[in-house]
């Protein structure tokens, strides 16, 4: 009777269009996030995440419209992240129909933003996204150390912050984040599986739901992430390119004795 492991496709959206390639049969417009979202809903996804990668404010306005149109026809929870810098940004997304909002870089610069959002809208709307990487030998040589050996990054992993990723996740949860999206910048794009060691480390220290992200390639990768303590598993390209379906991932989870919807 436990809560099931959530399988969450993530769509990168730039100015209202899905960025990464999409290889679905039968879509009228493979670049339309609304149509893709409906497709994933029909496949049985447990939630959906839109990551707005628009560089311009015009692109973000477009995103509001995408969220509104998606919420009209998708009846599973929708999280929207990317470029969220204030409680007003959160308000606009929630009013458009988002259920949760992902916050990343702005919270690193201003941790109080986490508390402000939680106080105004409740912890349940706030997914704190952590882009983390293992500190390399070169990094250590350059003097970068953190207690856990993992560091928070920004700019898609290109810039280190020197902040301990595990401590940051713990602190954000204490400030009011309702959920942690832990994205391994080392594993991201490799298709070699999630960073299980990092997941286990964060799981031990953080008592809000934990979403594993980065590195998914095979159905077994999702199983391993759930067994390492992830409450939810998120992936982008394996779903978009048609390498895996949501159903295949759920079959693997079920076969491993994990609960799925």
């Amino acid at each position, binding site marked *: *009777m*436990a*809560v*099931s492991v*959530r399988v969450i496709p993530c769509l990168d959206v730039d100015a209202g269009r899905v960025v990464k390639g999409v290889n679905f049969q039968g879509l009228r417009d493979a670049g339309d996030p609304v149509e893709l979202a409906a497709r994933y*809903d029909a496949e049985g996804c*447990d939630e959906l995440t839109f990551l707005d990668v628009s560089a311009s404010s015009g692109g973000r306005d477009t995103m509001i419209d995408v969220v*509104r149109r998606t*919420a*009209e*026809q998708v*009846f*599973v*929870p929708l999280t929207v992240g990317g470029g969220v810098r204030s409680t007003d940004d959160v308000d606009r997304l*929630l*009013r*458009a*129909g*988002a*259920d949760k909002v992902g916050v990343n870089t702005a919270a690193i610069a201003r941790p109080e933003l986490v508390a402000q959002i939680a106080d105004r*809208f*409740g*912890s*349940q*709307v706030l997914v704190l996204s952590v882009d983390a990487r293992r500190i390399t030998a070169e990094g250590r040589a350059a003097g970068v150390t953190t207690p856990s050996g993992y560091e928070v990054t920004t700019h898609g992993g290109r810039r280190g912050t020197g902040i301990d990723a595990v401590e940051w996740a713990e602190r954000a949860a204490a400030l009011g984040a*309702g*959920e942690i999206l832990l994205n391994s910048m080392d594993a991201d794009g490799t298709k070699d599986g999630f960073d299980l060691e990092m997941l286990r480390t964060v799981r031990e220290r953080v*008592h*809000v*739901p*934990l979403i594993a992200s980065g590195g998914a390639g095979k159905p077994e990768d999702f199983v391993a992430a759930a067994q390492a303590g992830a*409450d*939810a598993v998120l992936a982008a390209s394996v779903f978009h390119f048609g390498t895996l379906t949501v159903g295949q991932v759920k079959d693997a989870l079920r076969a491993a004795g994990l609960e799925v*919807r």
Partner: protein
Amino acid sequence: MSPADGSVSAELNPAPRGRARGGHPHVVVLDYGFGNVRSAVRALERVGAQVELTADRGTALEADGLVVPGVGAFAACMAGLRAVRGHEVVGRRLAGGRPVLGICVGMQVMFERGVEHGTSADGLGEWAGVVDRLDAPVVPHMGWSQVEAPAGTRLFSGIEHERFYFVHSYAAQTFTQGHDDAADPRFTPPLVTWASHHTRFVAAVEDGPLTATQFHPEKSGDAGATLLANWLTTL
């Protein structure tokens, strides 16, 4: 399931009072600043309701059904409800046997009180008992869980074994049946549906005109749509 044909935005085209139009029940979603009301409106439209999003007391009193949404803090939701005199609307509707559906914190406020961070706030007191923090290794309880629906449930008819989407850190973990009412031979005891997240808690209640769910039917896919359709049949 597909969205109801020809459905239009409730804000643009207010529904008629009562069931004047094609037998579609008129449902008001109480707009008091809490909850993803857009989702609730769309999910109800999807199953054939004429939905109006408003805090207008007269409209909320006259509707065939009233939905009380709610997310966030118990005390803040209660303050929001009182600000639009929602507590009076709910009380008057229930006194007249007119259906009300509470969702998430909209269910929690039906209990006597809620305790958050050690501070107690009064609820609407329709049911005895207190809403307090879940004791579990991972909180909030976030995701899809099964429920244990009782025999005779109308709300869960046909979806007894489905999963529903929960997101909450607080819950009613006991349910006390009203003993005073039980002396009345006409009294029908509330049907209580339970779920579990480390500990058992109340997932839904069917109590005459008052129905409530701790989970979000408007976010629970096809199972949630069926539940809302089941509720509409009781209006």
